């Protein structure tokens, strides 16, 4: 797969904009309860987690489907449903360990994140950049740089008396 959705939970403010735009994209109605992403919130701890399909390499939903209606699109890196084959048995809802497979009452079918055909709306709209859609081969690099920046600043503070004056903090984490 080329790209994947990656979360930064520190950045998520729990605003639920992702839920709204996801629902509009998939149903043409604004209704977070019909979205494929849902922000699970722990207000008393200030912790927010946008939960959605993990697009598993060895997906439980794919494995359990009696009609082989679920398949992987390797190019987009996502797991998709072929509604022509789906019989609505809902075994996939039971199988998914992330609760990512849900059911749309109005459309009468199971639904899951399909990465919006390569243009995920949640990523487009998230004001905090808490959800990103990035190249799988360097998915951890941004976080690595951000953590490295913090460490670099610590080392720089320790090296204050160093004659060579390694002023590491001058490096912006956004390079």
């Amino acid at each position: 797969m080329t790209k994947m959705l990656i979360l930064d939970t520190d950045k998520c403010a729990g605003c639920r904009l992702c839920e709204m735009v996801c629902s509009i994209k998939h149903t043409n109605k604004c209704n977070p309860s019909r979205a494929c992403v849902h922000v699970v919130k722990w207000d008393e701890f200030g912790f927010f987690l946008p939960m959605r399909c993990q697009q598993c390499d060895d997906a439980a939903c794919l494995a359990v489907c009696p009609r082989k209606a679920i398949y992987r699109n390797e190019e987009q890196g996502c797991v998709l449903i072929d509604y022509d084959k789906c019989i609505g048995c809902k075994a996939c809802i039971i199988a998914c360990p992330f609760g990512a497979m849900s059911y749309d009452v109005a459309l009468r079918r199971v639904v899951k994140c399909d990465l919006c055909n390569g243009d995920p709306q949640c990523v487009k709209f998230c004001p905090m950049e808490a959800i990103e859609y990035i190249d799988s081969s360097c998915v951890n690099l941004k976080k690595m740089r951000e953590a490295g920046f913090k460490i670099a600043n610590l080392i720089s503070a320790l090296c204050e008396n160093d004659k060579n004056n390694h002023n590491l903090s001058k490096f912006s984490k956004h390079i």
Partner: protein
Amino acid sequence: MTYLYQGNILFVNLSNGEIKAVPTESYSDKFLGGRGINIKILYEQLTPGINALDPESVLVFGTGPLTGTPAPSCGRIHLMAKSPITGFEGESSAGGYWAPELKYSGFDHLSVKGKAEKPVYIWIRNGQVEIRDASHIWGKGNYETTVSIREELGDPEIKVISIGPAGENMVNFASVLTDLGHAAGRTGMGALMGAKNLKAIAVRGFKDIEIADIEGFMNYSLEVHKQIQKDPTRLELSKYGTSRLYDHGMINEHYYAATDNFRRFEWPEAPSMHEFFEKHLVKKVGCFGCPMRCMDFYSIPGVGKAITSCNVYYGTIWAAKIKDMRIWLELTTLCQEAGLDTQSVGNMLGWLMELYEKGIITEKDTDGIRMLWGNREAIIETTRKMALRQGLGDLLAEGIEQAAKQFGSDAENCAVHIKGLPLLSANFLSFTGAPLSTVVGPRGDPMSGDLGEIAGPETPCEGSPCAQILMEDTLAATDSMGVCQWVGPLMGLPFGMQQQARLFSLGSGIEMTPEGLMEYGCRIRNLEMAFDVREGRTKGDYKFPKRLLNTPAPDGKFKGQQLKSEKLDQLEKEYYRLRGWNVATGVPRRETLEKVGLNGIANNLEKLGNT
């Protein structure tokens, strides 16, 4: 097909249990939504002249057409009722996540009348309404109430708006809260709910909001979101909240805070809010669909846990001279759980501290507490007693105006309130628009219109009636659309009349222009004044406090300057003249009411003799 609106307004009568729904469109054509429809419902449903806490009083909750959509920052709920503090319009709004859920549950507005025989809460689930027993949660704090209701009804996603013990005890300045700390604090809305035995309203919904031009609405919403995200004000608020704005660095340059109960504008020992923020902030949090994330979430075990922004810092720290920020967090947590307006509490604590300093009150009056500036016992114990109406708290709970009467004229002269509303601990010489805004606005609020700019030699602190009118109408329209004032006109961010009108047009399929929105704003302001007039408001009722007039500032940037009462009076008259209201009384003239399409209201006022 109804676009943007859900199309139903819920009316609940707690005296007789009657529940009915009325089409929103019978109100939205002329009053748009949010604050606009709220005032129309209130005008219609409330019997003029009754006591604000009478069982027949009316409390309205309003969302706007954009609420619950991806338009930026459309998560606020607007409350409106006759204020138990002023006797005129009471209005307060709260952020968080309750308003969109009310809409998803099927209703644009909720109007509550009557009084339940014993404590109840209203439960709205996807259009189904139930009035449930609340005796097991009566007495609980606000967040506790939310947790209890979620457990009782078996759904952790239920959104709750509630009162704490202060509202239950009908404390004059009690607030209404949702989530962890999103408060509708001003004008005593919590007392309304307490008077109705209404502990909370729980909502949960799964209904669609329809959008007319989906692609257009989505594309333009994204554009407005991006514009807001680039704005430097947004960058500051999103990263630092208001901690740097109310830090002594900024205040000691622009002098917009008052201390010593409005006697001084310099406080060298002011604590560093920013230091506290850096050390103790757990997370920056925000409201539904909002790119600002302006709220600060603090949690210190053993001290407290609270969400805060702007006036929660502003109204307390300088007011009571709280040097130790941990005491501030303890106070804020207490106010949020008990449901008390922090601005009122801060103001009243500062007032009591001055009275004690001068010997006007002693330990005899304060149940043995030494009312010292910044003192933890004085602050926490007094506030707790206010919420529970214990000891001195019982008198204070009646509000500063009543409490001052008890302590005598010296105490009354020190009380800084407007029509009973304790004023924000601000320096009214600093923002040019604040004094006029407080006197002519809908609820005695310095930020209800044109805040102006920081006064300087070229910009005296006077206020501009014309700017005040334009801003009031803009904010009234904003509040009626369901948009948060902070991402729009109030902070100068790019979600103003133009953007709001365009989003409304795309979303509803009904053409709206910025001028059209301003017309709604003007009509709403006229109806708000008509409501107040019907309740007996006349010029001079929102009387600017004595202490803040004709008194040269003793220190700071504005040392020696003063607000002159004749000047303020002149500005108020000019405001009425430009509004088309009677210059001597502030009563909207018939021609003006007819011009804005309120002929029925004009007739009604005439019949009642209020002209």
